[in-house]
């Protein structure tokens, strides 16, 4: 049965091999130059705080070089790989055999259909996981200068921390979970619907929905987030905006968490000295650095004075910024938990597929 599965799998195997080869060539050809750019920007020899400026320059300049788009392209391929595998490997695996009637041929050889499915699932599933993770590891290696610069300085454009949506889903071990899940989803959808094209459509819809729901609603809650309140000053990394008539109210978002590099900022908002959320601008601050215009016309601050004076004023009037975040140290815990969730879903789907198999004909 293993040999038959391999024989049937050869088109997919060739496709996977060609994709991997093209991906390898692309990254191997550009990776060394990206690393040398990193060194040329002075990042190879800097220490501690002296790295901040070259790192920020390096990440900001990515957008003007081919490496920014290349990073996005390779990230996109890794994100799409599980979906493509679910659609083109998973969905037809059983559905095509049911459609063409070859399932009857296969099930009348001296091999039980449980073994038939087990072998097909194992070969397809393991290959799916290996191929996706191989793509991910190669791109992680290629992007080491970028992630190093982000760790040394700050993120800009495509260069973001590893907790960012794109990086979390394409680095580490999560691609293994996605690939296993998408493949099992396709197989089971095919077994239930018994026709390849509708099974592909359902696979795509369910997988896409889960890939959107996961980072938005599930991942932030995999562990209870940490809270911290920080001082609001003109030197801080904030994004303030006066709102309401005459700037009577305001919003204030934190951009980074000082002293906690790589943390995943979930939400932020201004609070008063008692820790209550506030949105009313202290009377003394309404005219500080403020044009009086609503934020719809620009950010509402006068040229030259900027938001720094406004932020200082808020700080003087007892306003602090409350942050909710996941610390950087939880990265691998989150990776493991999310991967385990997807693997468990994949196993549950496969188990359901086995249960359904007895009723197929």
């Amino acid at each position, binding site marked *: 049965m293993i*040999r038959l599965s391999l*024989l049937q799998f050869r088109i997919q195997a060739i496709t996977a091999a060609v994709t991997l080869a093209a991906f390898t060539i692309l990254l191997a050809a550009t990776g060394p130059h990206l690393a040398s750019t990193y060194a040329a920007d002075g990042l190879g020899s800097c220490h501690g705080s002296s790295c901040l400026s070259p790192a920020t320059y390096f990440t900001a300049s990515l957008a003007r070089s081919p490496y920014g788009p290349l990073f996005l392209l390779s990230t996109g391929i890794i994100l799409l790989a599980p979906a493509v595998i679910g659609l083109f490997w998973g969905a037809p695996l059983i559905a095509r055999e049911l459609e063409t009637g070859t399932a009857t*041929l296969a099930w*009348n050889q001296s091999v039980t259909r449980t073994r038939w499915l087990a072998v097909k699932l194992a070969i397809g599933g393991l290959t799916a996981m290996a191929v996706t993770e191989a793509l991910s590891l190669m791109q992680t290696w290629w992007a080491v200068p970028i992630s190093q610069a982000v760790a040394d300085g700050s993120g800009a454009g495509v260069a973001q921390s590893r907790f960012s949506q794109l990086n979390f889903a394409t680095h580490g071990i999560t691609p293994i979970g996605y690939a296993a899940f998408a493949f099992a989803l396709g197989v089971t959808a095919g077994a239930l619907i018994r026709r390849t094209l509708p099974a592909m459509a359902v696979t795509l819809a369910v997988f896409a929905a889960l890939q959107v729901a996961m980072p938005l609603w599930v991942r932030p809650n995999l562990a209870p987030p940490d809270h911290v309140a920080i001082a609001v000053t003109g030197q801080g990394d904030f994004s303030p905006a006066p709102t309401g008539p005459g700037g009577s109210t305001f919003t204030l978002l934190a951009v980074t968490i000082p002293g906690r590099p790589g943390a995943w900022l979930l939400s932020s908002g201004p609070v008063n000295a008692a820790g209550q959320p506030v949105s009313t601008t202290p009377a003394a601050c309404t005219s500080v650095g403020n044009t009086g215009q609503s934020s719809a016309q620009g950010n509402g601050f006068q040229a030259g004075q900027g938001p720094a004076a406004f932020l200082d004023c808020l700080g003087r009037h007892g306003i602090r910024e409350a942050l909710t975040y996941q610390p950087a140290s939880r990265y691998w815990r989150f990776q493991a938990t999310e991967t385990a969730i997807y693997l468990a879903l994949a196993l549950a789907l496969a188990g359901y597929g086995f249960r359904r198999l007895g009723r197929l004909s």
Partner: protein
Amino acid sequence: MSAVIETSNLGRQYRRTWALRDCTLAIPEGHVVGLVGPNGAGKTTLLRLATGMLAPTRGTITVLGQRPAAGPAQLARVGFVAQDTAVYARLTVADHLRLGAWLNPGWDDDLARQRIGQLALDPKQRAGSLSGGQRAQLALTLAMAKRPELLILDEPVASLDPLARREFLQGLMEAVADQRLSVVLSSHLVADLERVCDYLVVLVASRVRVAGEVGGLLATHHRLSGPRRDPGSLPAGQEVITESHTDKQSNLLVRTGGPVLDPAWAVTPVSLEDLVLAYMSRAGDETPARRQHLGVAS
């Protein structure tokens, strides 16, 4: 004599409709059995239940004394050629022989190669580009070379042209002659069955109307024609299968173990086709006692 297929009150329901219902039969071993009946009689459902492709909704079925498709050993004992004779379109003829060898411990590679050679199939040709007849022959080769004890064929020739049909059945006959093999073959074309079968089961609406060895059936059925008379006045032991009357004449098809002695009748033999048609057109509301009588003599 033991049964290759034995069912008891077997039923299979698809959503709300019953494809097969209360089917009780026993097909003896060592025959080439023709399973014949009109469309919708439940032939395909019965055969798919026998191969384990379907699970029964009700009742029981045993094949060669075991539950169908109970495990690898049982699967190895039964060969099946489905109605559509599906093969893997992208794999070559040689690939099919390889997969047969991989998946069947009892695979007879010499037999498979010999058959492919006789059929003049190119081993390197993709199965998807074979003609319907060649595809059916390839499917039959696969089913045969696993050396089953029972070979089940579901309307294998229904979609073939007359020449391909003849060749397929001829190949089947030769193979059966060489191997010790029971065969169950379904068709709604009696002419096909007449050529190959030595045992006949007529299935109408899940019920066995008549079953028995072809020779015996032909010997015990007669067409009687003579002056008009009431069939009720026939001697005991002469069972009327069909009757038609004109003002002056009666035409009867009767089943009887003994000779027809009444000199008023002109007695002519019946063909297998007449016999099958007679049983298929006969009213289906038999009493349970009568059904018992018509049950398979095994």
